[in-house]
């Protein structure tokens, strides 16, 4: 087996410091994005409700039209 290579200290420190920096960056970004995503979810919920109401009204109108046009009532 090839003997293991002695890695230069520059590369070793660079690797592990990047690992730690990456962990901090990931945690920070997650904490930054989480409340924004919550707010956006609430906004999306409200808009969805309004949209569904409108769709219901449109559907009722469409079905009602069938009766409005007939000469039965």
């Amino acid at each position: 087996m090839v003997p293991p290579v002695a890695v230069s200290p520059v590369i070793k420190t660079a690797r592990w410091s990047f690992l730690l920096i990456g962990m901090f960056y990931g945690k920070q970004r997650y904490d930054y994005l989480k409340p924004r995503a919550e707010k956006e979810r609430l906004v999306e919920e409200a808009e969805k409700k309004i949209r569904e109401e409108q769709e219901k009204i449109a559907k009722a109108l469409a079905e009602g039209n069938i009766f409005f046009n007939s000469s039965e009532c």
Partner: protein
Amino acid sequence: CGYFVQQLMDKPHRQPVEYFSAATYSKPRLATFWHYAKVELVPPSPAEIPQAIIGIKNIVTGVNSGRLGQTTVKDAFRNGLVCTEVMMWFYIGECIGKGGIVGYAV
């Protein structure tokens, strides 16, 4: 019938067969991985950090003096690969920090 039973009992014992399982497959490979990782992937000891700072200073002086402009394409390619690998550790750290591999689970 007794003759056949006798034959079965007299059959020489072979070594028990090691059946193919995840443990038997991975153990020697884990051993080789550990053999290399113990030397190559360990974090820098406190004695090596000043050496690393000196090394970075050397690189900076090399850039300023123009010595790094003289690197061969082969060396530059090799150094580029090493830098790419070091950058990947950053993204692995980011995956650990955000708690997931693809995307942020917000």
